[in-house]
């Protein structure tokens, strides 16, 4: 069953995320019935999944939570914050177990006590104990009995639970004796109905026991024998298959199925009667044939052809005869050999991929094989003395095909590596809730655009920096409730995490509705920590001052709050975002809030660039940013301030001369028209004047690091086929 662990881990984590999300919504609006249903189903499915991988403690813990949630589905009572907390901690525990499974490939062996603790926590706050005279609570005694007494269970036909009246002793009854008189008992258990009270509180005259028992006798017999006890007793027919494949027990399975068909045929409900009878007949026939009772099987077949009303009785008669003729071969339950557990190496990082994307790759691989074979053929022809021109033509053609295919494979692989932001974002609602609770500020947290996709590496590496930004937003951004009240804001601060795609970049923002950055305070801290010399600080505008929070060693936390005051400030955020090839910016609106904006590349792998030439040097421009190339007559280029611009499609587009901007010496082109590349970034246009336009190519972009990392206007480098280094320009920085 181990091959399912990998899928189990994936699904379980998704279910945990779903359940957590639902619980957090319920925390805000406890009357959202659809979320109650949804969270119930998440727990239920998780429990089922735990069963598939035979992880009993996890199933047990989830079952306890599920039962509690189930009550809220049917009653008018609203789910309480305490229950939500318990459910969340249950999911936390499950997550820890999953982590162990991920690492070891097996369910943790020591999960029992933790599971017991969870079961206990759900058992406690369930209100007053149910009145024993009322209908029996819908319990799981059957499951528990089966778990405790598997041997007795496998030999039983009937299970019963008897909860005697509290005054049974006064009435002269002896409940245990009643049960012990039942025929074919395979197991009897006694339990206290309620948890034991302090010794002094026990009333020795009150009957507070419950009895569960298993019997090999049939259910009807037992029911009749206990019929005078009314609803104090529950009698259930067991038709569970035996969990062993030993030959002697196969007929027990057949017997059990046939019993079930008799019970089905006895159902009297009018609706669906014909369907039930025919279905029971079909199954009876199948079972009888399979066990070699062909005569009985054909008799059922004949009966099925008869009048509907008589069918059921006829079939019941045949089955009962067959059961009598076939001697019982029940043997004592055989020890079941535990299946050897095959250790399975679990890949620590699993990527869930749309099958359509895999199919695409498979198809491309097929096409590549065709080209490969064609090359082999060409080589054979060359050896056979085919003339050079024909070979060259053949090679060119194959090269073109290969070029197209490799490009498609690259794009297909890229699409596989693309993940929705949700994978990272879904962890935050829970964390923000904890952080807000930790500092005692009410906060509402919303996520927008979590379906936005980006490269897996980007999505996964965003967790740390975003967590830090969110901590800051809660800790420093949102004011305390008193101050919010004073400024006429709602008591709960609002934080929004949103993602969106713009051409080849992904923008991730964290916006709060707090007080904005306190520039006076930033100045003060920057001065005391000597982030910048005092004279520099004095001349800096508020915008520049705000940017200082990204400076190394800066932190405005006046006290170490245990949250954001950990010595890593926004400079750590900036570093990790820049490592991903992104940028961080901050926007502060005094009294209204702060927005931290991360601008990230969509992919870290391949960038399609267009080469351009300026002052005799070749540069690359990310093709996604190139909107158009154009030739603009010089008389249409007008100076605007220190720069120049031209009109293009009713827009004024600023124009910079690339060689000049980069400080390269070169002759200024005085021709009548300028060759320009029009670029776009975040909805803005800008044009670069270049000497020559080059080719288009896919390159693996390496960010500049070391001393070159500080170079502005450059987004990275790549090696060209001839060994030259191509510098790829950062269009946005060129225009800022």
């Amino acid at each position, binding site marked *: 069953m181990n091959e399912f662990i990998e*899928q189990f881990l994936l699904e379980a984590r998704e279910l945990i995320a779903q359940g957590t999300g639902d619980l957090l919504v319920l925390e805000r609006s406890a009357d959202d019935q659809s979320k109650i249903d949804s969270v119930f189903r998440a727990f239920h499915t998780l429990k089922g999944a735990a069963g*598939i991988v035979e992880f009993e403690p996890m199933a047990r813990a989830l079952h306890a939570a599920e039962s509690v949630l189930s009550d809220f589905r049917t009653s008018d009572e609203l789910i309480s914050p305490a229950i939500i907390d318990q459910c969340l901690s249950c999911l936390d525990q499950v997550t820890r177990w999953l982590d162990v499974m991920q690492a070891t490939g097996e369910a943790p062996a020591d999960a029992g006590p933790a599971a017991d603790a969870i079961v206990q926590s759900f058992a406690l706050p369930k209100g007053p104990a149910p009145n024993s005279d009322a209908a029996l609570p819908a319990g799981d005694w059957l499951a528990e009995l089966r778990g405790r007494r598997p041997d007795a269970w496998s030999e039983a036909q009937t299970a019963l639970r008897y909860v005697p009246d509290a005054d049974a002793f006064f009435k002269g009854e002896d409940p245990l004796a009643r049960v012990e008189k039942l025929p074919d008992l395979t197991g009897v258990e006694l339990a206290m109905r309620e948890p034991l009270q302090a010794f002094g509180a026990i009333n020795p005259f009150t009957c507070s026991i419950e009895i569960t028992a298993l019997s090999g006798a049939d259910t009807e017999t037992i029911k009749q024998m206990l019929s005078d006890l009314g609803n104090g007793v529950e009698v259930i027919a067991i038709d569970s298959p035996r969990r062993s*494949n030993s030959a002697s027990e196969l007929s027990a399975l057949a017997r059990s199925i046939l019993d079930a068909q008799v019970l089905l045929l006895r159902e009297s409900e009018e609706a669906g009667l014909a369907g039930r009878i025919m279905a029971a007949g079909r199954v009876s026939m*199948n*079972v009888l044939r*399979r066990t070699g009772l062909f005569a009985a099987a054909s008799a059922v077949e004949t009966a099925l052809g008869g009048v509907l009303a008589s069918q059921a009785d006829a079939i019941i008669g045949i089955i009962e005869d067959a059961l009598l003729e076939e001697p019982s071969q029940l043997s004592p339950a055989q020890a079941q050999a535990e299946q050897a557990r095959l250790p399975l190496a679990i890949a620590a990082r699993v990527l869930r991929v749309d099958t359509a994307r895999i199919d695409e790759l498979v198809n491309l691989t097929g096409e590549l094989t065709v080209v490969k074979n064609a090359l082999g053929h060409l080589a054979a022809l060359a050896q056979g003395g085919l003339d050079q021109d024909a070979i060259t033509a053949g090679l060119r053609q194959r090269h073109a095909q290969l070029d197209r295919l490799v490009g498609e494979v690259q794009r297909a692989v890229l699409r596989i590596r693309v993940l929705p932001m949700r994978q990272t974002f879904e962890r935050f609602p829970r964390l923000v809730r904890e952080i807000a609770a930790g500092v005692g500020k009410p906060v509402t947290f919303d996520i927008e655009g979590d379906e936005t996709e980006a490269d897996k590496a980007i999505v996964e590496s965003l967790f740390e920096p975003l967590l830090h930004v969110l901590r800051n937003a809660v800790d420093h951004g949102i004011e305390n409730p008193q101050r919010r009240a004073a400024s006429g804001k709602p008591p709960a601060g609002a934080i929004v995490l949103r993602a969106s795609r713009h051409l080849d970049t992904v923008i991730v923002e964290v916006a709060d509705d707090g007080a904005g950055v306190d520039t006076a305070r930033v100045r003060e801290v920057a001065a005391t920590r000597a982030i910048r010399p005092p004279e520099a600080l004095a001349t800096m505008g508020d915008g520049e001052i705000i940017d200082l929070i990204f400076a190394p060693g800066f932190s405005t936390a006046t006290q170490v709050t245990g949250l954001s005051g950990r010595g890593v400030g926004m400079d750590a955020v900036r570093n990790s975002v820049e490592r991903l090839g992104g940028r961080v910016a901050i926007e502060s609106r005094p009294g209204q809030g702060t927005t931290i904006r991360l601008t990230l590349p969509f992919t870290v792998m391949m960038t399609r660039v267009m080469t351009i030439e300026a002052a005799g040097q070749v540069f690359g421009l990310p093709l996604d940013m190139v909107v158009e190339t154009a030739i603009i007559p010089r008389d249409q280029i007008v100076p605007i301030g220190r720069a120049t611009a031209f009109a293009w499609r009713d827009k004024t587009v600023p124009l910079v001369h690339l060689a000049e901007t980069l400080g390269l010496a070169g002759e200024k082109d005085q021709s009548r028209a300028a060759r320009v590349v029009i670029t776009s970034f975040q909805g803005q246009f800008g044009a670069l004047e270049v000497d020559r336009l080059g080719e288009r190519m896919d390159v693996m972009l390496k960010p500049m690091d070391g001393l070159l990392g500080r170079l502005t206007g450059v987004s990275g480098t790549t090696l060209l086929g001839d060994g030259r280094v191509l510098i790829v320009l950062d269009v946005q920085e060129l225009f800022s």
Partner: protein
Amino acid sequence: MTGAKAKRILIVDDAALVRAYYRQALESAGYSIDEALNGLEALEKVLLHSFDLLIVDVNMPQMDGMTFLRALRQKELPLSSIPVLVTSSEAGPQDMVAARAAGANYYSIKPLKQEALTELVGMLCGATA
């Protein structure tokens, strides 16, 4: 010999893991498997294709197993007579009794071990051993 190969089984369960488990276990025993994610989808499938057995979960979104089963049993014959195995992770008596009332041929508690499952399925849909 009409072996398991001839038999078509529809698995109705909203949990992908459960479906995958049943599919793997039963396909390796030679059955042909189709899947539905809930009762509604299952109703559609049984109208379009014929099956020798349905394995139906209880708790599913959109249409639960019991509702589906009651609806199925009230269809015209022979559609209404498809053998149905109800599986649930609830070991409580309510589901076992409710499944029977809805028209289930057999009720079992998830998950069944592979041998138990193939043996049970073989019996229910009459595959020759």
